[in-house]
């Protein structure tokens, strides 16, 4: 469960891991017991220890001077190369833009960024070989490709001089096919990594469980009036201080309020709710009836508030995460299930991704489904890859071929396999990447096992209908009416006796709820 992408880019719970805000948070942290090697730098350690920012500024000040970069410190130069620009307008963004304009005059910033993190780059080569090494299947590193890496500069452009990081594969009559094969091998290595690890069902089920934990925790914070910004700060601080193994403990702390202020707020709210519920337990003056007596009063009762119930559910989810209770796949929507081209630019696919990239929509869908099918709270989790390109961007590496610079996937004609540079191999691989995309809904095993075979089939049908609509012209009222029979079939497997036509409070809470897909929770009057 890497902190780098999962919680940020994939699940959208935290701000971007490679944004300036995150790196600032890491770089400003003081490390009291770290010091510089005195043979490299004789600077005395600050009283409260070094921060990463201070170390970089001390060690690389001379480099910046040599590059004749004035008015910027080494740490900013580093950030300019490795970070994404700030997303929101404001002072931070203005300062960033100002610094970048100074820097661009002194160095080829685009080239530096491409070398560090883009298509075939230091970041990619590092994690590809490292991940395979740690998986026990080390990849062979053919260093020949590095010899083909070049920086090409054009000075005859109207906009002035421009440098680009490329892989030189030679002239048209002497194409270095081994370079292309090497790129294809890297792409294949990346694909295998995605297929066998990154998008493996078990990993996705656990990621989805982690997502559900955070969705519910975030909801608690909203209920006690903590802003999204503050939640992100608290979560980030706790996560950055912990290790991967400490994740369950971090989540538990987060669920308990995170910091002192949060814990206090949560406690206050629970106490207030408890007091209100006590009034309902010790019923006030009731209408005296000859044959009924008023209930007894008891001030020592400690009821469980709704917040506590939700925290209990969260702790149960955290325990499942810690104990690797992998949920079972209940529903899968593949890219091939979409009408239209099976590509990232499929408008329906884009719409679905946009829908479920929003954590609030994921929670709404899951809570709605649980209430609709009488499934225990926390029994459903979902995963929806936020990018349908599925990290096939290696194929966009710039080639220097026939004296021109062209991205590989544009040069290799996708529609004419026989005459293309790789005889269709590149685009076949890219399409395989696209086919990796699938949105999935998982269910807790005990809940799944409680359903009969028919119930399971019907649950799939219900999820399918409530999850997303392929056809924008379909009448949602009719779709809703059609799915009712499947809902009843699932409910038959989840027996819930009801006296005097009592319904669950959840059903009333969701009575007017519309699923993110647009389908209504409740059957419209006369809709059956």
């Amino acid at each position, binding site marked *: 469960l890497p902190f780098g992408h999962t919680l940020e880019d994939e699940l959208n719970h935290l701000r971007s891991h490679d944004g300036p805000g995150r790196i600032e948070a890491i770089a400003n942290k003081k490390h009291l017991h770290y010091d510089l090697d005195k043979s490299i730098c004789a600077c005395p350690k600050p009283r409260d220890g070094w921060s990463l920012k201070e170390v970089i500024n001390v060690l690389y000040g001379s480099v910046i001077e040599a590059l004749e970069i004035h008015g910027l410190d080494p740490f900013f130069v580093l950030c300019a190369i490795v970070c994404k620009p700030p997303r929101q307008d404001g002072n931070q963004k203005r300062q960033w833009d100002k610094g970048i304009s100074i820097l661009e005059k002194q160095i080829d910033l685009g080239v530096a960024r491409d070398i560090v993190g883009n298509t075939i780059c230091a970041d990619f080569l590092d994690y590809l070989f490292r991940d395979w090494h740690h998986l026990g299947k080390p990849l062979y590193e053919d260093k020949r490709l590095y010899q083909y890496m070049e920086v090409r500069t054009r000075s005859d452009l109207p906009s002035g001089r421009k440098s680009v990081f490329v892989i030189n594969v030679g002239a048209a009559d002497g194409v270095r096919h081994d370079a292309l094969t090497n790129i294809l091998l890297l792409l294949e290595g990346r694909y295998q990594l995605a297929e066998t690890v990154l998008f493996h069902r078990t990993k996705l089920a656990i990621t989805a469980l982690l997502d559900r934990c955070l969705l519910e925790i975030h909801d608690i914070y909203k209920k006690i009036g903590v802003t999204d910004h503050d939640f992100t700060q608290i979560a980030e601080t706790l996560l950055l201080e912990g290790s991967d193994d400490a994740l369950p403990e971090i989540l538990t702390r987060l669920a308990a309020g995170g910091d002192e202020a949060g814990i206090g707020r949560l406690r206050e709210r629970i106490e207030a709710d408890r007091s209100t519920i006590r009034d309902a337990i010790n019923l006030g003056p009731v209408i005296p009836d000859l044959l009924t007596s008023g209930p007894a009063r008891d001030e020592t009762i400690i009821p469980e508030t709704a917040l506590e119930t939700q925290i209990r559910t969260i702790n149960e989810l955290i325990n499942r995460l810690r104990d690797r209770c992998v949920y079972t796949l209940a529903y899968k929507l593949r890219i091939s299930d979409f009408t239209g081209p099976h590509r990232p630019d499929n408008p329906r696919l884009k719409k679905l991704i946009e829908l479920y990239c929003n954590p609030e929509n994921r929670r709404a869908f899951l809570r709605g489904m649980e209430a609709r099918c009488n499934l225990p709270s926390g029994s459903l989790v979902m995963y929806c890859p936020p990018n349908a390109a599925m990290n096939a961007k290696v194929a966009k590496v710039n080639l220097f071929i026939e004296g021109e610079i062209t991205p590989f996937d544009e040069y290799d004609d996708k529609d004419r396999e026989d005459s293309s540079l790789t005889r269709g191999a590149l685009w076949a691989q890219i399409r395989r990447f696209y086919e990796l995309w699938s949105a999935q809904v998982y269910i807790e095993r005990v809940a799944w096992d409680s359903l009969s075979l028919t119930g399971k089939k019907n649950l799939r049908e219900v999820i399918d209908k409530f999850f997303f609509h392929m056809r924008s012209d379909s009448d949602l009222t009719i779709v809703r009416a059609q799915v009712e029979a499947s809902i009843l079939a699932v409910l038959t497997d989840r027996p819930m006796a009801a006296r005097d036509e009592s319904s669950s409070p959840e059903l*009333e809470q969701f009575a007017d709820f519309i699923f993110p897909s647009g389908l209504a929770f409740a059957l419209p009057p006369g809709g059956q």
Partner: protein
Amino acid sequence: VTPDHLSESLLAIAKQLRPVTRSPYISLVNLAKNLGVIVELRFHTGTETRVAQSDLNRSQPKIFLYRKSSTEGILRIASDKEYLLTPRERFSIAHELGHFLAFKNLNAPPVLKEADPAEYRRQERCMDHFAESLLVPEWLVKLWLMGVSDQEPISLEGLKKWSVAQCGVSGEVVASALARVEPKVGFLKAAEAVRRANGKNLFIVLYSVHGTDLQLPNLHSYIDDERFVDKIRGTSGCLSIDDCHLGNVKCENLNLAWHRSNIGTSRRRREFHSKVQLSGKGYWISIRLDRCCDYPGTQRQLQLNLF
């Protein structure tokens, strides 16, 4: 499982669960616990009226009793906290235990109202019957009847003592159990009202139960026979009526006893608003058919069973 078979089987189970003992009271939370069922009081903020539900699909089944509150929460009811429950909530536990036993022992899952409304109602009646038998078993009713006159209407003070003090249930449950065993008795709970159109007094039946020898008006009937309406007055009283109409039912030779009571009007039907004006007061009325009643066999049999 046919409805008849379900009902009979559940009554047999209720008999097993309530053998003849000295105590008229049964701790339902304890019974639920022994059966592996958790009882929770759930506080909800919804506007709908909800009474109870049971989730039978869990590894540990749960009975949810609902109470309105301005905030949501749960109280798990332990055996020593049963006194917090109202008689209606206790009846609900018994009712839901019926569902649990039907599901577990008789393979009869609860019927969804949405799936089959008629079957749902039939099953609910079955469970009510089971709950009543569990809370007020037949041997207890017979024991009570041994101590009352077979000529007079059953005392409403007695009904109160048996229901609230002894069994921890509502008067309605005990009244129904009495009428099940004693064919000549019946009970009405009637709200005082004035007909808006002509200003005449009348009673609206809010509860009605009767033995097999007697006929009484149904729920929500209007009783406007002056021979009846004008005589039920004051805090309490008793009376014999030779002949009158109670709703559409013609009744003869009735011995009545009544007791004034506050009647909650929150659950009154909407049509009452337009047609009648409810006073918020009403009466519990105990009725006995004034004929010679002789059940020596029953009493002897009961004595043999008990002693």
